[in-house]
C-alpha cells in the first residue's frame, strides 16, 4: 500500500473535532473509540461477577427521577446493601442513571459525562419520559427517545418509578451484567457515527470534542 493511502485512511480514522476552535484542537484527543472484545470465557466470567458486585453510580440527577434516588441512598431503602454507591465524578462511576426527561441542554452534559466514564459502563433510564417522551412528548425542548443518543441497558417505567422499582431495576441489571449481556459501550463505539449524527442533530451549538476521552 502506498504511503499516501495510509495517510488517507489514518485521516478517516481520526475525528474531525469541528466544533472546537482552531487553536484548541491540538489540546484534545482526536482518536476514535474502539470496541473491546471479551477475554477468554473463564476470565470474562470472573470479571463480570466482579463488575456486578461493585455497581458504582454517577450521582448526576438529570431529572425528577433523582428525587427517588435520595430515599434509595438513605436509611430506609439503603442501596449500599446491593453494592451500589454514588460516586461524584464520571471517572469513578460505572452506571449512569438518567433520571427522567432530558432537555437539549442536559443531553449535551449527559453525552459528555457518559463518554468520560470509563468502560465497562451501563445506563439505566428512569421514567416514561426516557422511553417515548412521556407526558412531554410534544415539548420542544425535551427528547423523546433516549436510546437514539446513548445506548440504554435497562428502562424502569413509571412516573416516577418507586424506590422498590429502582431496586428491581438494579437487580435486573446485575443479572444482565453477570450473564455478559450488557454490551452498551461496544454498541456505542460500533455505531459511533449514527449516534453522533443523532446527537448533533439536536445539539446545535456543538462546542466540545467529538469524543470526550
Amino acid at each position: 500500500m502506498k504511503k499516501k493511502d495510509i495517510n488517507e485512511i489514518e485521516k478517516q480514522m481520526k475525528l474531525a473535532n469541528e466544533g472546537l476552535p482552531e487553536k484548541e484542537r491540538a489540546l484534545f484527543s482526536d482518536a476514535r473509540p474502539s470496541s473491546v472484545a471479551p477475554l477468554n470465557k473463564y476470565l470474562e466470567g470472573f470479571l463480570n461477577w466482579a463488575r456486578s458486585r461493585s455497581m458504582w453510580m454517577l450521582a448526576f440527577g438529570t431529572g425528577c427521577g433523582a428525587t427517588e434516588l435520595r430515599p434509595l441512598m438513605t436509611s430506609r431503602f439503603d442501596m449500599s446493601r446491593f453494592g451500589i454507591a454514588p460516586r461524584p465524578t464520571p471517572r469513578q462511576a460505572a452506571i449512569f442513571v438518567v433520571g427522567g426527561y432530558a432537555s437539549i441542554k442536559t443531553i449535551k452534559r449527559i453525552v459528555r459525562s457518559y463518554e468520560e466514564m470509563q468502560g465497562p459502563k451501563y445506563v439505566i433510564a428512569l421514567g416514561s419520559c426516557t422511553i417515548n417522551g412521556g407526558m412531554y412528548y410534544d415539548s420542544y425542548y425535551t427528547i423523546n427517545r433516549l436510546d437514539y443518543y446513548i445506548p440504554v441497558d435497562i428502562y424502569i417505567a413509571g412516573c416516577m418509578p418507586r424506590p422498590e422499582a429502582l431496586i428491581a431495576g438494579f437487580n435486573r441489571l446485575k443479572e444482565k451484567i453477570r450473564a455478559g449481556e450488557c454490551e452498551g459501550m461496544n454498541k456505542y463505539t460500533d455505531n459511533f457515527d449514527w449516534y453522533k449524527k443523532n446527537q448533533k442533530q439536536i445539539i446545535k451549538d456543538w462546542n466540545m470534542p467529538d469524543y470526550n476521552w
Partner: protein
Amino acid sequence: MEQILNRIKDKIEIKISTKKRDDLYFFTVEKEQIEFILSYLKEQENFTHLAFMQAVDYLEDGKFQLTYMLYNYKIHINLGVNVLIDRKKAEMFSMHKLWPHIWQYQREIHELFGINFPGSPRVNESFVLEGWEEIPPMRRDFDTLEYSEKTFYQRPGRSTNDPKEYMKEKMYKNYADTPTIRREK
C-alpha cells in the same frame, strides 16, 4: 385600595380597571405612562415588592400584553399593571432602575417572546435555551408538537386520543357540537 385607585386616576387616565378579589386588582395603562405609574406606586403607595413580570401573546390582535404584579406589604394587596404593546414593534422600557432583579424577567421575555428591552443589563445572555434557531418558542405561532415531531424521534406505538372526540363518538353521538374557538396554527 379604592382611595389609591382614585389617587392614581387623578394623575393618569386608566383604561380598564377590574377588582378580581379583595386582595387582587388589575388595571391597564398606556405604554408611555408605565415608567411613571410604576415608580409612583413603588415610591408613594408602598407597592414595593415586584412578584413577577410576564408577557401574554395576543396573536389575533397583534399585541403583547405585559403584566407587572406588585404587592403592598402594608395593606397586603396585589396589584397587576397591564400594558399592551404592538407585536410588530415589540419593544418595552427597561425597569431595572426600580427593581434590580427585574432584569431576569426581561431576559426571559426577550428569549421566549422576542420582546426587546433596550438598556436592560445582560438581556442578550441565554437563559434556558441553548443553540436555539427557531422563532422564540413561547410565541403562539410556534407549534411545539410539530417541532417535536420534526426534531426528535418518535417511538412507534404511541397513540393519542382527543378526549372530546372520543366521548362524542362513544357516549353521545347526537350531541350538538358547540362552536369552539379553535386556536390558530
